[in-house]
C-alpha cells in the first residue's frame, strides 16, 4: 500500500520536479515488485522515512523524534491533505474553464490562472446609486424582459446581456457575445444599463431606434460597442452616428426627448434594478448570471450545458 500511495504522490509531484520523478520511478518498481511477489531491494517506506528524518534531524531533534514516532499517522494526514488539495486544484481548474474563475461562478477570490481577476471585473454601478449586493442575489426573477430589445430565434436557450455602451468591461466582452450570437442559436435580449451618466442619453436613442427600426437597431448597437468611446459619448456626434444608418434623424431625436420615451427608459431601468446587478457586464445565460467579462469558452460552456455542478 505505501508503494501505491507513494507512486500516486510522486507521480503528481514528478510533473513539476525531476527529483520526484526519480522517486516515482522507484515507487513504480516497488509496486511492480509487489505485484510480482518480489520484495523491494530496500524497504521503500523506510527509505523515504529515512530521507525525511535525515532532513529534519539537523533542524530539530524534537521534531524529528515526533515525526519518527507518528510517521504513519502523519503520512496518512499528508496523503489525505494531498488528495484533498488535488481535488481542490482540479475543481479550481474546472471552475476556471467553465466560469472563468477558480473559485466558482462570479467568485472574485484569488485564482492562479487569472491572478488579476480580469474575468470578474465590472464597471461599477455605485455612481447610479446601485448598492453592492452579493452575486447570489443577482436574478431575473420577476423581471419583465419583454420591454427590452430582443432577437427571437424560438430557441429554448436565452441570453440576456446587461451592459453599457460607455463601460470598459462591457465593450471588452461584446466581441465574445457577438461571436456567440454568430455560432450558437438562442434568444438574445439586450438591456442597456448606463452605469455612468455620460451614456444615459444613448438609452433613449436606442429605445427610439428599436421602436421604429428593429432590425437596424442591432447594427447601431454593434457600432456603439465598437466605435471609439469618446466619439460615441459626445452628444454632438449623435446625429452623425444616426446618419450612418439612414434613420429619420428628426424623428429619432424628437422621440428621444419625448416624455413617453423617458418614462419607458425609466421603466427599463427599474426592471434592471430588480435584477440586483452591481456592475456591467452581467450576462444571464438561461437565467444564470455571469458577472464580468468572461472568456468565450465560459459562455459557450453555459450554452452547451457543459456545466455539471
Amino acid at each position, binding site marked *: 500500500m505505501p508503494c501505491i500511495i507513494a507512486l500516486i504522490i510522486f507521480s503528481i509531484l514528478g510533473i513539476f520536479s525531476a527529483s520526484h520523478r526519480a522517486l516515482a520511478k522507484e515507487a513504480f518498481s516497488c509496486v511492480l515488485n509487489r505485484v510480482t511477489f518480489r520484495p523491494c531491494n530496500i524497504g521503500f517506506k523506510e527509505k523515504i522515512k*529515512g530521507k525525511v*528524518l*535525515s532532513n529534519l534531524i539537523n533542524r530539530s531533534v524534537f521534531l524529528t523524534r515526533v515525526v519518527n514516532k507518528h510517521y504513519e499517522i502523519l503520512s496518512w494526514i499528508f496523503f489525505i491533505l494531498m488528495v484533498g488539495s488535488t481535488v481542490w486544484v482540479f475543481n479550481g481548474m474546472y471552475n476556471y474553464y467553465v466560469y472563468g474563475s477558480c473559485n466558482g461562478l462570479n467568485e472574485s477570490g484569488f485564482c492562479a490562472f487569472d491572478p488579476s481577476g480580469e474575468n470578474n471585473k465590472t464597471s461599477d454601478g455605485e455612481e447610479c446609486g446601485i448598492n453592492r449586493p452579493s452575486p447570489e442575489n443577482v436574478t431575473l426573477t420577476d423581471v419583465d424582459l419583454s420591454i427590452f430589445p430582443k432577437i427571437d430565434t424560438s430557441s429554448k436557450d436565452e441570453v440576456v446581456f446587461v451592459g453599457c455602451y460607455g463601460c470598459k468591461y462591457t465593450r471588452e466582452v461584446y466581441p465574445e457575445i457577438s461571436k456567440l450570437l454568430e455560432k450558437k442559436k438562442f434568444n438574445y435580449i439586450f438591456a442597456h444599463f448606463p452605469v455612468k451618466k455620460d451614456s444615459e442619453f444613448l438609452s433613449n436613442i436606442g429605445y427610439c431606434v428599436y421602436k421604429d427600426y428593429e432590425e437596424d437597431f442591432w447594427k447601431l448597437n454593434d457600432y456603439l460597442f465598437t466605435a471609439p468611446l469618446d466619439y460615441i459619448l459626445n452628444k454632438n456626434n449623435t446625429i452623425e452616428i444616426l446618419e450612418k444608418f439612414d434613420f429619420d434623424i428628426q424623428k429619432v431625436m424628437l422621440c428621444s426627448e419625448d416624455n413617453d420615451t423617458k418614462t419607458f427608459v425609466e421603466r427599463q431601468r427599474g426592471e434592471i434594478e430588480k435584477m440586483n446587478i452591481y456592475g456591467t457586464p452581467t450576462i444571464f445565460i438561461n437565467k444564470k448570471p455571469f458577472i464580468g467579462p468572461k472568456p468565450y469558452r465560459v459562455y459557450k460552456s453555459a450554452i452547451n450545458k457543459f456545466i455539471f455542478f
Partner: protein
Amino acid sequence: MINIDKIRADFKMLDIQEDGKSNLYFDSACMSLRPNSVLEAMNDYYTKYNACAGRSAHKLGDKVTKKIKETRGLVAKFINANTEEEIIFTKNTTESINLLANSFIFKKDDVVLLSDKEHNSNLIPWLLLRDRIGIKVNIFSTKDDGDFDLEEFERMTKGIKLVCFAYTSNLDGTSVPAKDIIKISHKNNALVFLDCAQTVSHRKIDVQDLDVDFLAFSGHKVLGPTGTGIFYGKYKLLENLKPFIVGGNTVLYSTYTDYKFLPIPERFEAGLLDYAGIIGLGEAIKYISNLSFEEINSHELMLNSYITEELSKFPQIKIIGSYDPKKRGSIINFYIENKDMHQIATMLDNMANIAIRSGQHCVHSYFNNRNIKNGARISLSFYNTKEEVEKLVDNLKKIMKII
C-alpha cells in the same frame, strides 16, 4: 603501523565529495574500494594491448596470455597454492561454489555440512543439489558469542562427504577455527571447502598450512574489479571434478562425436575470460601483498573497538555475534528490536554520505530463524580512518536520540 595517508592517496574514490561532503565508505564487506593501480592496469589492457589470451598468435595475444598467467601465479603465491594450476578464474565466489557443487561427484544420501550463518551463495547450491539428486544438507549451529564448539563439530562430521563453511562470516565477522575444522574433517574422511570472500583482505591465507581442499573468494572484496573470482582446489581433487560449464577454451579438440578436455585449470574456465578484470585482480593482489596483515588487523581492530564501545552505550542496540571486537574482525552488524535498519542506513547516507549496508545480508536463514527483521552492517577496511569512524558514531548518536 599503517601509513593511512599514503594508503588513502592510492584510492581515488576517497577524494570524491558529494554535496560538499566526503563519502565515508563502510561497506567494504560488500565491495572493497580499489586502488588506482588496479584501475590503471585495467585501462592499460583496454587501451594498449586489448586482445584474447591463449588463442591468438599475435604479440598482443601473447602479452595478454602472459598477464593472465602472471595473475594466476600471483594468486597462487598469495594463498600459497602448491601450483598455479590449482587457481581457477571464475566470476565471483558464488560461481566458484556453484562450480564445486555441480562438478563434485555426489551420490544420493551424501551429506554436506554447512554452518547456520552461511551466505545464500553457500546454501542455495547445496539445497538445489538436495532437491535434484538427493544429497543431505546438515546444519551446524554456531554460538552467538563467536566461540566454536569443536567437539560438537567433530560429532557432526561423522559420515559427512563435504564440509562447506565460510571462513569469515559476512554476517558478524567471526572466523571459524579453519585449521582445526579441516583437521577434524580429514580425520573423518570429509573434504573441506572454505568460503573466504570475507577473509582474504583481512588475514593471510595459506592453503598448504590450512590443508584446505577447496577454497573460493571474490576479486571485488580484495581490492580487485567486479566480475572476478577465484576457485582453488588441490590439484588431485580438481582432477576428479567433472567440468560444469564447458565450451570454448575448455577442450583440446572436438569432433562431431567426441572431445578431449584441456588440462586443469583451463577445462574449468569456459568461454572468453574477463581479461581486464583478471589483470586488475593481479594488481590488487600485488597491492595487498605489499601490506602487512598484522597491521591491517591491528588498524581494523582499533576502529572496531571504538565503534563497539560507543554502540554498547545504547542498550537498545544489539550487536549480532560477539560483543568482543577481537572476534568480529572488521564487521559490526547491529539491530534494534522492532526497527527497520534500512531507515538508519538511509539516514546516515542522507545526513553525512555515510555508506553502510542494511538488510539481511544474503543470510536470510539466520534472520528468519531468529525473528530479526534486518541488521545494519558497518564493515571496515584498512583505508578507513579514526576520524571517519568518529563521524559515523556521532551521526549514529544523533539518530539514536530520535529512536
